[in-house]
């Protein structure tokens, strides 16, 4: 279980997170929605130590993340980055097997490659992709490789940061389906950041809406349509008019 307790984070005068409180239960697929620049990515990066919160506490399975051993802690996580964040200096299979080639999870090279090819197959990529470089792949293929890398070491918790950004609607649907399948199949805890409502409908068990640095609403995906919160209604229906201010 991941618990955010009163998380604050500012960048200069930009107060991004202003007291976020949120619980993600074990095995649950939580989707965090919210407009661009509302701090969704910042929130998940605080869990991984990529960004330090100014104040507040983050607990994973009851343990304060500042008190845990970093390597062992991070080995429990997988992450799909918005732009893929594939290492362009190495071929696809080495990207996927990165964690299996060094550190505590190190395997012989042939075995690591075998696992990488298996994971690539799981996300719908042919084995011949393994020896290509990330720059030779389309955006959709890069997302799949990123997904394969996120699941390669069989993590307990996976973060998906804007998994469908930059993809066409069909490819977005494919990636959403893949994420849902993988989350169910592996039984992992998943936290997805998105403002794509198709992703929400496919991936979410629960939905939390981040607005003005706090959780505006949180509930089951099935309750979202009847949330009664005007912010959620405006966001879900994509209305320009409503309590969420828009620049025109």
């Amino acid at each position, binding site marked *: 279980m991941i618990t955010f307790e009163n998380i604050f984070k500012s960048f200069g005068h930009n107060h991004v997170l202003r007291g976020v409180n949120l619980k993600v239960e074990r095995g649950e697929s939580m989707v965090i929605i919210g407009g661009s620049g509302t701090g969704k990515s910042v929130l998940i*990066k605080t869990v*991984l*130590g*990529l960004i330090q919160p100014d104040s507040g506490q983050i607990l994973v399975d009851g343990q304060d993340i500042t008190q845990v051993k*970093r*390597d062992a802690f*991070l*080995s429990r*996580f*997988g*992450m799909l*980055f*918005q*732009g893929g*964040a*594939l*290492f*362009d200096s190495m071929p696809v299979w080495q990207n996927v097997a*990165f*964690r299996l080639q*060094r*550190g*505590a999870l190190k395997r012989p090279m042939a075995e690591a490659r075998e696992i990488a090819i298996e994971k690539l197959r799981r996300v719908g990529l042919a084995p011949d992709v393994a020896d290509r470089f990330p720059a030779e792949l389309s955006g959709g293929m890069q997302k799949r490789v990123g997904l394969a*890398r996120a699941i390669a070491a069989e993590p307990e918790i996976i973060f998906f940061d804007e998994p469908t950004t930059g993809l066409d609607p069909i490819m977005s649907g494919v990636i959403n389906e893949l994420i849902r399948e993988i989350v169910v199949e592996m039984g992992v805890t998943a936290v997805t950041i998105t403002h794509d409502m198709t992703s929400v409908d496919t991936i979410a068990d629960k939905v939390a809406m981040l607005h003005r640095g706090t959780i505006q609403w949180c509930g089951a995906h099935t309750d979202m349509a009847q949330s009664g919160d005007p912010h959620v209604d405006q966001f879900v229906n994509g209305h320009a008019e409503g309590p969420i201010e828009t620049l025109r």
Partner: protein
Amino acid sequence: MSAQMILIVRALGRSCIDAIFALGRFVLFALATLSHVFRPPFYFREFFSALLNVGYLSLPVVGLTALFTGAALALQIYSGGSRFNAPEVVPQIVAIGMVRELGPVLVGLMIAARVTSSIAAEMATMKVTEQIDALVTLSTAPMKYLVMPRVLAGLMAGPVLVAVADSIGIFGGFIVATQTLSFNPANYIINTMNFLTTADILSSMAKGMAFGTIATLMGCYYGLNSGHGAQGVGVATKASVQAAAVLILAANFLLTAVFFTA
């Protein structure tokens, strides 16, 4: 004190504080890099790859630069020495000039141009595209995986490159002196060998180590601390080369003072 004076003092004070702050951050970065040298894991593949890039692939540019500089130096010394009837000092001055100063400085500046810029651009791009964050999430410390192998490669490749530059520079002077200035080849070599001391060569190697370390460290520092987007990559690359070149020249002055004014 007039209001204008207060503004000037305030601006100066702010610049000084910013400079001290930047220096502090860089020193902390250098100390963090040093601490990783002694703590496992060690990424040997990354180290050898960096050694290839910093050392082996820098050989052509270092060699050519040293060759032409040594040749030009021989012509200048011959021309200058002739003014006070001492044109025969060419082998000695070429040797001492190349080994003590020009060899190390040319290598330092060439590495700054070739290696510092490429390291800064590569790391800044990795930062902009979240590859650095991805490394962290894959339980790999960027300082250990990216910085330490490159800096260690700079430290080791620097003296080797300087030795090559010194030798080729002296050879450039030898070619010009024997082919166009009528120097006797055997005497030229004997004069060169007799004039150089162990201290000259050791100072040259020490400078190579220092300059190789500075060049790679500055590339890593500016790359990992770059701003956002393509502009951030450009600014980091430019700043890294400027800082490395200035620091190399400053370090050269300090090392020369330490080695030759005692």
